[in-house]
């Protein structure tokens, strides 16, 4: 599997938006935007959790991030989030900072790939 496929698995990404009526540009754009917004919020939540020594908060954010990332095909981000979720069950919040940095990095790689899936601004819907 290529590096890009590990960041965003094309097959999973296409499949997740194939509802009964088939792929729909507007639906895809809406969900990509929602995912980017959600993921950014969850990563921020994980940062706050680590900074405030709240491992449960980090774990909860990582759990939610894992589910959403896996669904959209963001494999690397999902894998890092899963590792962070399990680490949060047994480690002090201060030990979780490297894991939080990893998910931040994976999201930074993913974001431009997802943005490139959105139709250009001003294009007809």
């Amino acid at each position, binding site marked *: 599997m290529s590096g890009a496929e590990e960041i965003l698995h094309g097959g*999973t990404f296409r*499949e*997740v938006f*194939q*509802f*009964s*009526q088939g792929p729909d540009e507007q*639906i895809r754009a809406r*969900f990509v935007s*929602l*995912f980017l917004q*959600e*993921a950014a919020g969850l990563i921020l939540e994980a940062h706050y959790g680590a900074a405030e020594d709240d491992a449960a908060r980090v774990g*909860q954010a990582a*759990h*939610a991030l*894992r*589910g*959403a990332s*896996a*669904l*959209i095909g963001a494999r690397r981000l*999902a894998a890092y989030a899963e590792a962070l979720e399990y680490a949060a069950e047994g480690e002090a919040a201060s030990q979780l900072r490297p894991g939080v940095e990893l998910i931040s990095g994976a999201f930074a790689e993913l974001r431009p790939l997802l943005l490139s899936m959105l139709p250009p601004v001003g294009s007809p819907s």
Partner: protein
Amino acid sequence: MTQAILIVEDENFTRELISVALQGAGYRVTAVGDAEAALRVLERQVPDLAILDVRLPGMDGWDLCQQLRARGDFPVIFLTSLRDDEYVVKGLRAGGDDYLVKPFSPLVLVAHVEAVLRRTSGAAATHPMELPGLTIDPARSRVERDGTRVHLTATELKILAALARHRGTTLSARQLLSDANGYHVTEKEARPVVKVHVRNLRQKIEPVPEEPRYVLTVRGLGYMLSSAIAASA
């Protein structure tokens, strides 16, 4: 009749995605983010099926499932990223009818919903339903009020069973007649017919027919079986 699905999932992206997928497949969807909100929804309306995330903030999916089971007889699908067999067993033992592990394709979820509804709709249609003071047993064509058998006509029984299956939901006269007898008529045609059946039904099952507590009229829309009466089915 459009079937109603209750989704309980705390993660916004997943909740929105499965809502849109199920709406696209023709279901009426109510989606909430935690167990407390789900229980509030249930006070107003009993769904045909519930999809529960296991790991929810506050009350978890297992406990919520048991609470739902005490409030209505409808199937439950668990949705979770927990993969271990023990969780599958726990989910099914907690009263779940099916179990889907994330990540999943929304199309697969829709297929699971269809399969579970297909599998359970026959059982629900014939399952005895208990309300305080009233027992409805469609399989035996038997209705009891305070332990005494009430004799209903076939159409009255079917109308009552349809209302009970969709307890807390308003059904139009057309929907009731279609559900009861398979008639395809307009609402205008159905209304006077159903009105007569409901009046007769109330005479037989309501303690005070002029002030119904079971079969309520929703002005301009139709009828519903009161959801304010706690079910023990």
